[in-house]
């Protein structure tokens, strides 16, 4: 499929904007705005790993081969970021360290791969200055934290965090020490959000285990696993690291306000992925934290920048049976096509990933069993996950990224577990009923590795979502989406510099009697960040009846009669 040049599409999108904002609801017929393309009517997934030929080839280190400490097996995140704003999303990969016993063999360098726009990438890490400062990396979140129009990169570390401010000239500077978000410790997931809706992005950072580097280097496998192996202990038995919340002061600095905001992490949960989203649909961003082995947190925004954990009675803290699971990754999307946000949380092996259906008012039901997600994911130890319309048929499919944390399980086939595991593609057959389509998803889904991070994005601008996946001790995979598919529309939400943030924007599409919703977030999946352009599959529909953008400040932009198959830039207040 010939890629669509997004600069052309974006320019045309601005035409849309002028009309939409100047005249209100009436917009022109959209036929002239989109590059033409052939809609393929056939069905079927096909993903091909093109990472090596595309130039994404740096090994992601993960401690020792035996995974003696949980840090060795926690893995790292990946992000899509258009750092040079050329219309082609670039790839950022977080890296760990390579150890041998207690000796550090190599401090892995994070990687920024610039998208050349021809299907290949150029490693610009050193030129951009985003190698990670020698820290053992964990997660990544992407947002324009200072509102200057250029996306910045937060890297959470085992050690002080790094916030790479984008200078706009292809280079970055680490401002974390200066602005107060370093937080030494084992930091994992993070999310930017405008908690108090003042236009500035605030920041939540989760902590996992309160361990020192000495603890990691001296670690031994002491936990008895099923009576047959000694494996890395934890997280049970190890002290939890607390989460942190920082409020932007408006002058480029953050101050810690964890207690004041009601986000104390009372349970000292083993926090992994953090996802900000308006889960109760009241217009302000809430915070969801997947905790490993503890109840998950659902911090509801009370509307004034303070939060209340309503996880227990909202249905989002535990599974349907009232049990805490081992939360790893988080996907937020609309699994049942009702226009409200649902959540999938990935969990440990011999437990299921949990799909929670939202009612749009902040209440959720565990539908893992009836949806088919539970059965399909039970054997896997799961990490990154995304709800994404991978065949452009109008509903969101579910990807679940897998891999065990104990290499020792391979010595015991009687347990039917494996260290390297296939990733899963669960096809949405409508109304949140999922079937396992992994075996018919092409060679990319035939890979068997110990995978962790996941970022979905349309790197070749051809109208479908590709998948960037990190693995332990291997280079990442880039699964190019060659699936047969329907129409699509990708929406780029922009807020002019100095006028707030686009993070937290919600886009709702009405097309062919259906509704679809997406929200713009700085992070998700597992310690990762997706393409900030919001992709919608439209099935056989060639035109969107109505498109609504709800901006973080509550204002709205509405477009009608929008043509499919293009990139549409919607700018707030133009």
């Amino acid at each position: 499929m010939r890629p669509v040049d997004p600069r052309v599409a974006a320019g045309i999108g601005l035409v849309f904007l002028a009309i939409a904002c100047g005249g209100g609801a009436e917009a022109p017929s959209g036929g002239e705005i989109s590059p033409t393309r052939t809609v393929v009517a056939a069905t079927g997934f096909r993903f091909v790993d093109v990472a090596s030929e595309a130039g994404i080839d740096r090994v992601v280190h993960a401690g020792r081969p035996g995974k003696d400490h949980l840090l060795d097996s926690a893995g790292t995140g990946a992000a899509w970021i258009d750092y040079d704003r050329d219309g082609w999303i670039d790839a950022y990969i977080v890296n760990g360290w390579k150890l041998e016993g207690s000796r550090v063999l190599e401090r892995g360098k994070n990687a920024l791969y610039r998208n050349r726009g021809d299907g290949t990438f150029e490693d610009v890490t050193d030129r951009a200055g985003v190698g990670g400062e020698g820290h053992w990396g964990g997660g990544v979140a992407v947002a324009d934290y200072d509102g200057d129009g250029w996306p910045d990169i937060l890297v959470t570390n085992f050690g002080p965090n790094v916030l790479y401010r984008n200078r706009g000239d292809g280079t970055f500077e680490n401002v974390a020490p200066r602005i107060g978000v370093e937080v030494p410790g084992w930091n994992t997931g993070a999310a930017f959000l405008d908690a108090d809706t003042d236009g500035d992005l605030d920041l939540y950072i989760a902590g996992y285990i309160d361990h020192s580097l000495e603890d990691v280097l001296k670690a031994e496998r002491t936990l008895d696993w099923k009576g047959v192996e000694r494996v890395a202990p934890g997280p049970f038995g190890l002290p939890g690291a607390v989460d942190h919340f920082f409020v932007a002061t408006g002058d480029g600095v953050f101050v810690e306000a964890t207690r004041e905001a009601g986000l104390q992490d009372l349970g000292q949960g083993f926090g992994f992925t953090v996802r900000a989203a308006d889960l109760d649909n009241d217009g302000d961003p809430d915070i969801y934290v997947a905790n490993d082995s503890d109840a998950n947190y659902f911090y509801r925004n009370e509307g004034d920048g303070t939060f209340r954990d309503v996880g227990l009675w909202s249905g989002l803290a535990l599974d349907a049976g009232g049990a805490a699971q081992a939360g790893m990754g988080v996907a937020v999307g609309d699994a049942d096509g009702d226009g409200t946000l649902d959540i999938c949380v990935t969990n440990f092996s011999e437990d299921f990933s949990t799909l929670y259906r939202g009612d749009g008012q902040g209440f959720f039901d565990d539908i893992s069993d009836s949806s088919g997600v539970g059965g399909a994911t039970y054997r896997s130890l799961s990490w990154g996950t995304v709800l994404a319309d991978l065949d452009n048929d109008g509903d969101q499919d579910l990807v679940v990224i897998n891999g065990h944390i104990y290499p020792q399980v391979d010595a015991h086939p009687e347990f039917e577990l494996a260290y390297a595991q296939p990733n899963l593609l669960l096809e949405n057959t409508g109304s949140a009923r999922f079937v396992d389509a992994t075996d018919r998803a092409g060679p990319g889904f035939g890979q068997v590795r110990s995978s962790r991070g996941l970022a979905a994005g349309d790197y070749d601008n051809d109208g479908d979502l590709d998948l960037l996946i990190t693995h332990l001790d291997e280079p990442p995979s880039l699964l190019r989406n060659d699936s047969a598919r329907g129409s699509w529309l990708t929406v780029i939400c922009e807020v002019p510099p100095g006028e707030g943030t686009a993070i937290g924007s919600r886009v709702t599409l009405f097309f062919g009697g259906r509704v679809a919703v997406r929200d713009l977030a700085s992070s998700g999946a597992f310690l990762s960040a997706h393409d900030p352009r919001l992709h919608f599959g439209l099935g056989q529909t060639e035109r969107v009846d109505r498109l609504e953008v709800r901006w973080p400040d509550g204002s709205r932009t509405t477009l009608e009669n929008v043509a499919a198959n293009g990139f549409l830039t919607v700018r707030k207040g133009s």
Partner: protein
Amino acid sequence: MKWRCWSGLGVAGLILVSSVPATPAAEMGTETPRQLVETYDSLADSILAAKKTEWNLVHTILATTYSHAEVAKREATAKLEAGQDAEAELENLATFVAQIGTEGDAAVAAIRKRLVEGGHHHHAGGEQQGIYDPGFVIVTRDAKKAFLDASKKIARMAKSPDPAALETEWAAVQRQFEALHDGAS
């Protein structure tokens, strides 16, 4: 009981051991030295007392939480009868009911986690049988789910008040709470 108390007992035991006088082989009996047996017997009393103390403490947590729930219920009912918004009271009630199900809030959960991590399970057998969640002392899995389900229904009423449904749900919570004592141990 704080772990440092146990540590103190351990130290006392060591002192005791070191104070047992060396005895000529011909005079040694085959029994475990009485002093050690008596110390262990005393320690057993402390261990069992600690377990009972744990039960009493969790019982108090539940009773306190329930009394808070009663207050929230009364306040919610009063506001509903007066035709006023009772959202805050109903959400508080939902929170208290949920925390009965979880034997306390997240801070208590962190302590329970520490106990489980240290190998202490109040109902080890009951956990293996699936009756109790790890570390739970009084609330069974079934009861936990019932309280959580009730809390969700009550919280939903915060947005859509239904006094009659609230009474029904609260009566169910009361019955469930009273039933906890039937299986008290």
